[in-house]
């Protein structure tokens, strides 16, 4: 990257000129470009042509709008050993994110405005310019019984309602929440899971779980919940046109088929997929470490890691315990296909940091979750490099895609990804030709629970600017 002049402190207004391969989904354009940032404002964006563009390729320096994460857990209040808002924001910036939406499964849950205010205050105190948005709980204490203070939470700025970590078990509560939140213009962000089908489950039901003797989490445990939620949405939306359903961390081909059908029927349903469900598959629990797309055979079926020499690590690594569980390579391929065809609107990290105490235990007793906000772009770029998804579409799913899910409530918080002259710069600069090694020291998150520890990832984040201010600038 040329034109870099000064190293800058986090939070400072930035003045810098960056050149590289710019991808701007808001303008529907990508190509060689030069961006001149002065005192935090994107003063000039010049699309370079001819000789001026020489040496600038899509595989070199990448410039994109700052990423938007619809789904992250920063554990504050209540579990600050695992993460705080401040450490989570540092991790987000390291991952290229300039907007994060935090899930309300804290202790106490974010089911009333005072808790939401505490989270917002912690964000302000951190000094990070990364935008913090908050999902309020759907029900009191996320217990699934009575509606949380939805109206007050909306007034306090909640951008979505979710009982994430758990589904909204009760169909009547889900129905009422969709209607009530719909009138407020706030989406329900549902974690689709039928708990009766997944009780005690440890890994996705199928070949790998069977061989390893892990209790199966069937595909139907998610697909059934997705179908139910969409059916309820169809019912509610007739009376409440503002009702909106967002299904988070969708992980199976069957679920995505339901979403695809719901969208085709014109229903206001959206969904996201996680980087780990795109890049990893259940064979990682057996000790494989190849990308999910590398685990697919010529016949469109997953390969057998026990016979093709793919098992390179010890089995039962608890950094792979996550909910929904890592799925078959076929399901991972379906997630990637859904990303390409637009069925999946966004890539959301489900960043779920945990302490060593909660993870260095028996596989089935380990807490669910992967610390993933810093490795998300590395996995996504690997998928791009494999040819599985076009670069522009991947960037869209990290920027304008999630912004559309947030809709006007996101805009009210300043979420408007795009490289626009005259506005505060909000962007990420990534060196796609460089590698970094994922390590406990390299991660800003307190959560070191990632199966990528020790692995080289292609794509180094060089600069992150949020709202004109430096969020991450190691150079």
């Amino acid at each position, binding site marked *: 990257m040329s034109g870099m002049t000064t190293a800058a402190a986090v939070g400072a207004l930035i003045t810098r000129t960056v050149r590289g391969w710019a991808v701007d989904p808001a303008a529907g354009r990508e190509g060689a470009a030069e961006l001149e940032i002065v005192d935090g404002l994107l003063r000039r964006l010049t699309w370079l042509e001819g000789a001026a563009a020489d040496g600038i390729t899509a595989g070199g320096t990448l410039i994109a709008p700052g990423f938007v994460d619809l789904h992250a857990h920063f554990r504050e209040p209540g579990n600050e050993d695992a993460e705080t808002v401040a450490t989570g924001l540092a991790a987000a910036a390291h991952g290229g994110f300039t907007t994060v939406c935090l899930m309300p499964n804290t202790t106490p849950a974010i089911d009333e405005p005072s808790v939401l205010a505490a989270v917002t205050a912690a964000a302000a105190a951190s000094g990070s310019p990364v935008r913090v948005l908050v999902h309020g709980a759907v029900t009191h204490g996320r217990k699934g019984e009575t509606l949380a203070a939805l109206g007050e939470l909306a007034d306090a700025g909640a951008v979505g309602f979710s009982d994430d970590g758990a589904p909204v078990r009760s169909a009547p509560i889900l129905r009422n929440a969709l209607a009530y939140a719909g009138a407020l213009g706030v989406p329900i962000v549902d974690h689709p899971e039928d708990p009766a089908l997944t009780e005690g489950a440890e890994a996705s039901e199928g070949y790998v779980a*069977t*061989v390893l*003797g*892990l209790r*199966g989490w069937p595909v139907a445990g998610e697909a059934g919940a997705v179908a139910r939620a969409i059916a309820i949405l169809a019912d509610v939306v007739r009376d409440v046109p503002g009702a909106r359903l967002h299904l988070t961390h969708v992980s199976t081909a069957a679920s995505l088929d339901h979403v695809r059908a719901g969208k085709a029927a014109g229903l206001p349903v959206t969904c996201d997929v996680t980087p780990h469900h795109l890049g990893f598959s259940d064979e990682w629990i057996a000790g494989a470490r190849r990308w999910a797309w590398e685990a697919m055979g010529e016949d469109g079926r997953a390969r057998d890691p026990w016979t093709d020499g793919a098992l390179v690590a*010890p089995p039962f690594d608890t950094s792979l315990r996550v909910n929904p569980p890592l799925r078959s390579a076929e399901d991972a391929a379906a997630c990637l296909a859904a990303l390409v065809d637009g069925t999946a609107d966004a890539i959301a990290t489900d960043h779920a940091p945990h302490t060593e105490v909660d993870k260095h235990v*028996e*596989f*089935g007793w380990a807490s669910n979750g992967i610390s993933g906000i810093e490795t998300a772009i590395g996995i996504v770029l690997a998928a791009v490099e494999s040819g599985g998804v076009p670069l522009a579409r991947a960037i869209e799913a990290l920027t304008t895609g999630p912004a559309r899910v947030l809709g006007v409530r996101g805009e009210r918080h300043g979420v408007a990804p795009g490289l626009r002259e005259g506005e505060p710069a909000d962007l990420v600069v990534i060196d796609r030709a460089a590698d970094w090694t994922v390590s406990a020291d390299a991660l800003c998150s307190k959560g070191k629970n990632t199966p990528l520890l020790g692995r080289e990832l292609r794509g180094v984040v060089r600069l992150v600017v949020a709202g004109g201010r430096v969020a991450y600038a190691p150079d």
Partner: protein
Amino acid sequence: MTAQADRPDAAPSGSVGWHHRHLLDVDGLTRPDLELVMKTADEMSEILARPIPKVPALRGTSVTILFYEASTRTRVSFEVAAKNLSADVVNIAAASSAVSKGESLVDTVRTIEALGADMLVMRHPASGAPYLAAEVFGGSVLNGGDGWHAHPSQALLDLYTLRSRLPGGSLEGRKVVILGDVLHSRVARSNIWTLTAMGADLWLCGPSTLLRGFEAWAARGAAGRRFTVTSDVRAALRDADVVMALRIQKERMASGLLPSLREYAARYGLTTERLRAARPDVVVMHPGPMNEGVEIAADVAVDPRSVITAQVTNGVAVRMALLYLLSGTKSGEGA
């Protein structure tokens, strides 16, 4: 793992040729590994036939037996095996230790090591737990059964028992049927690896609720590792050389996997009449403990064709062999 060429005479006695520091699973054992265990178990059987069945092979070696699940058969078998080799044995039942106070497995294993254990035999209700123990334990870990995942010593004693009973001592092409609750069975899972490695024509049979996932395994297994999954007990037992019945637990009714024990016994119970479909010299096995009258009729359990008590006796020889082989690998490579 791919089955390698048979090398019956390659390995001399002792731990020469044995490269696994731990025995956590059987999926990584090659056919020569299996042959070496069998050959060593033969030597141990000779020792057991002596008036005083005791040798000093593991004198000065401390073996800790850590069981987080109730067990008589396996725990005592390991204890007798270790004592026959003159090892010092410490028994820890999880309920009577700090485990019940919430101590983590990692801390427990570190404590056991600090107390001088060289080898750790463990049973645990969570699949994969021995891998966690092996990650922190400086000596050798021997899996005495983990969750639904693996029961290596049981599969090896089953193999040993079959080789002594089948004509020619070979499983090649022999029809072996595992009948019953395959889904929850670590014995079945470990036997899938060892029996297919030795060339058996393996069939898994039971109600379809108790076979879930195994079709996927059978379909994915590569050439030479294939087996057949069926709910048709007649097809499974037809001309079988070996039938291994698995325990049916009462909890399976509560979770809706079976209508009733009566219906199971009527449809899948191993009875004399049902056994007529098998070969006349069929070998009947059961890893124990048995529910007589449910998965196996009382008269079948004591039929001359039953090797159930031989399985118990052979268990000591095979576990002696395993302790002995692993004792020579303390600073060797990982399993």
